[in-house]
């Protein structure tokens, strides 16, 4: 336990450091691979749309014990109802005593006929849900409108809050990354896409950006006055921010995922089917992806975009020059054994090496020293 907190302290001080920014190509590659797989899965397999998108009737029947036998009895009951359109229904058990039966679109009278037939076959209580084929589409279309408006507002918000359009871009890229991955998981797992899934996807938007904003806030803090500093580059400061917020990111992800995991658990094991499960899977995958992308995609990308700025480039060059000079003069601040000369030629000092050990903040003096 205290090892975790010492670890946290070391991360904060920069004694232990993971080079997120320097290895960004690796992370981009990993993400690109996952995104490609997800997109392929989506294109090849497509979504397993729920009855809300296809239109139809969903019956929920309460039986003594929901098992294969009672499911078969229910299917037989639907066949026996004398409604030709209701043939070949989809049947799932839900919980211990509930069976869900989905058929194609029926009229009210036909649906009532099926209900009566189900009751004859031993169902004690039957609910029916007539769904127009456009309902799911409407939910999705409206949600899409909301999504676009939300993205526009958030781009402006992040830009206004951080005074940095690059962070807006990076945040949105990370968000799209999360959405594509979640969509891919749905295509691969064959979980049903229902309005509840759409809700889950939309929540990911909020959460993914929420997480990104927390990390960006630290990046901004660390890189304030970076132009006058000769000891640290932008990339290094951004990387430090990532490391400093790493413990928070881990803790937050865990606390956010725990309730969602409980929701997923209740949805899958207690109910079996239904909106809880649809919602929880989207949230679970999306939040995982969101926590990953804030660290491995959003911040490296924002940093990369920022490094292209001439002023930042020049500042990085000054830092490099100074370090090279120090190295030549033998004043290496790096502990013995570190491959000191290697970094002099790198454009980004956040390359694959240990971070230089630093003096405590209080002794570093203000920027410009």
């Amino acid at each position, binding site marked *: 336990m*205290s090892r975790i*907190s010492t670890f946290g*302290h070391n991360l904060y001080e920069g004694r232990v450091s993971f080079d997120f920014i320097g290895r960004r190509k690796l992370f981009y590659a990993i993400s690109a691979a996952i995104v490609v797989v997800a997109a392929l899965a989506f294109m090849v397999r497509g979504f397993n749309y729920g009855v809300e998108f296809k239109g139809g009737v969903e019956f*929920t029947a*309460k039986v003594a014990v929901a098992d294969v036998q009672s499911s078969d009895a229910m299917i037989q009951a639907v066949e026996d109802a004398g409604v030709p359109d209701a043939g070949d229904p989809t049947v799932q058990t839900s919980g211990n005593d*509930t069976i869900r039966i989905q058929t194609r679109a029926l009229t*009210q009278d036909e*649906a*009532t006929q099926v209900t009566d037939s189900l009751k004859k076959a031993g169902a004690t209580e039957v*609910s*029916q*849900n007539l*769904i*127009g084929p*456009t*309902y799911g589409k*409407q*939910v999705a279309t*409206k*949600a899409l*409108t*909301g999504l676009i*408006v*939300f993205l526009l507002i*958030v781009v402006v918000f992040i830009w206004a809050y951080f005074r940095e359009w690059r962070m807006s871009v990076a945040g949105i890229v990370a968000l799209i990354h999360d959405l594509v991955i979640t969509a891919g998981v749905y295509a691969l797992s064959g979980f049903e896409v229902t*309005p509840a899934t*759409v*809700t889950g996807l*939309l*929540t990911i938007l*909020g*959460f993914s950006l*929420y997480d990104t*904003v*927390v990390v960006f*806030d630290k990046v901004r803090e*660390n*890189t*304030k006055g970076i132009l006058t500093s000769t000891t640290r580059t932008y990339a290094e400061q951004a990387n430090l921010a990532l490391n400093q917020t790493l413990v*928070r990111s881990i803790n*937050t992800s865990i*606390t*956010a995922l*725990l*309730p*969602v*995991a*409980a929701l997923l658990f209740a*949805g899958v094991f*207690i*109910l079996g089917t239904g*909106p*809880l499960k649809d*919602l929880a899977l989207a*949230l679970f995958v999306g*939040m995982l992806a969101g926590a990953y992308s804030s660290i491995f995609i959003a911040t490296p990308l924002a940093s990369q975009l920022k490094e292209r700025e001439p002023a930042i480039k020049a500042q990085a060059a000054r830092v490099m020059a100074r370090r090279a000079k120090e190295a030549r003069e033998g004043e290496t601040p790096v502990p013995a054994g570190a491959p000191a000369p290697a970094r002099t030629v790198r454009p980004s000092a956040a390359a694959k090496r240990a971070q230089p050990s630093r003096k405590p*903040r*209080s002794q*570093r003096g*203000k920027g410009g020293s």
Partner: protein
Amino acid sequence: MAKSPQRSSSLPRPKRTLTLFLVVLLALYALVALINLGTDKGEDSAWQPRLGLDLEGGTRISLQAKATEGDVTKDKLDQARNIIDQRVNATGVTEAEVTTQGNDQVIIEIPGERKAGIVDEVGKTAQLRFRLLWAGNLPSATKPLAAKDAAAQQKIIDGIDWSKLTLDQMIQAELQGVQTLPKAYQAGIAALQKEAAGFVCNPEGVDVDDVAGKPLVTCDTSNGEVQILSPTVIPGSDIKSAEPQYDAQRAEWSVRIELKGEGKSAFKTVTTALTPGQNRFAIVLDGETITAPASQAPINNGVSQITGGFNADSAKALSNQLKFGALPLTFAVNGSEEIGPSLAGTQLDAGLVAGVIGLLLVIVYCLFYYRGLGLVIIGSLAVASALTYVMVLLLGKGVGFTLTLPGIAGLIVAIGITADSFIVFFERIRDEVRDGKSLRLAVEAGWVRARGTILAADAVSIIAAITLFIFAIGVVRGFAFALGLTTLIDVFVVFFFTKPLVSLLARTKFFGQGHKLSGLDASHLGITGRKVTEIARTQPNKAEKVSR
């Protein structure tokens, strides 16, 4: 447990803030108790959250409005909602709730009983028609016609082609009696008279098949007058406008209607023929006569007034009905959902189980990681839950917020987001201590920095919730509302509960001196060589930040 040995005036006053917070919380609960006292025994207790249909059971029908002409406007939709509300509640269903949603949806929710048959009834468009009154002032029968006889009469009526009748023939039938109609129609007239003799005028509403091109037997439910009416002479789509108006001289409310197109000329013909005299025409809405006025003067410009015993409300209601009947809004049934109460209960139970498990897991994790500070998180989550619960109750009473399954999911998800605010804050405190501040200073300095982050991050959540609420429909909305509500509560709790509580705790011996189990001890924070109460000795520049 808050013991403050010495108090610095420069520090905020956490005790006062905490007290205020608790007073507000108690006041909210007192408000619910007050509301509960005011409710009748028969009504639901104010302590019960309003549950959505997916949790309580019942029928939900969602209707999609389509405009055959022009756009679906907010006005048109609101009028449609009112009419549908009247219809649903006229069928004897209690507490049916009819709401508009988005730009073009009407949602009907009928709790408790299952009433799927209602779908067909409310899905119909309100149809307003002008007909001539061939026979009126007939008494309501005490016993309805046997189903077999009624069907036989209807068959005779349906077998006749009424569309060949001209307007003049229909007018003549009213003025000089139905026997003036051509022979081919006499059998139909006899059938109509038999139907009328066995017509029961139910004040709750009449059940007739109103077909524009055929004559109709119906009644005026306000006075029980049974009538035989001609085929439609002016369809409702010819009404241009209908407004309630007040005649100050006569101290009387009336409804002014304006017709357009063919209806205008037909109205002129009808009123000219009927004036003067006791002869009337009938305005029929969905098969029920809403008024049967006499014509007092020929009307050329298509503008007329319907008078007779209106008050402000009924005049407005009638003009709304007229306008609505005239509006080209049709509805398609988008979905109809029936949920049994016990099935709904399963969903609620599963949702609650998930919530409790989720909360417990978060608590265990926080205690494991933050030890003593974990108690602060638990306390904060507890008051956040208490606040959420009371807000759900109050919003249920105030703005009709109902708790749905996606809404509960939203609340569960919010546990994580709420806990994150505390994590951001605590990690900041630790950072400040590591930077060399004493614990008590670190709490204040860490708060200043954490505050910005928490607000920015919560702002994103709020933006998401608001945008979704505005643009989304159905389940997504309930979720968005719950998310927005809990995010606001999160901000409120962090500012007015967690922060003052931590400030206060930092003054206690257990936390302030960094007891081993407090989560704030030196080794837990990873600092060495000093106590958490001390400011780092190697700190000549105070706590200056590189970034400042």
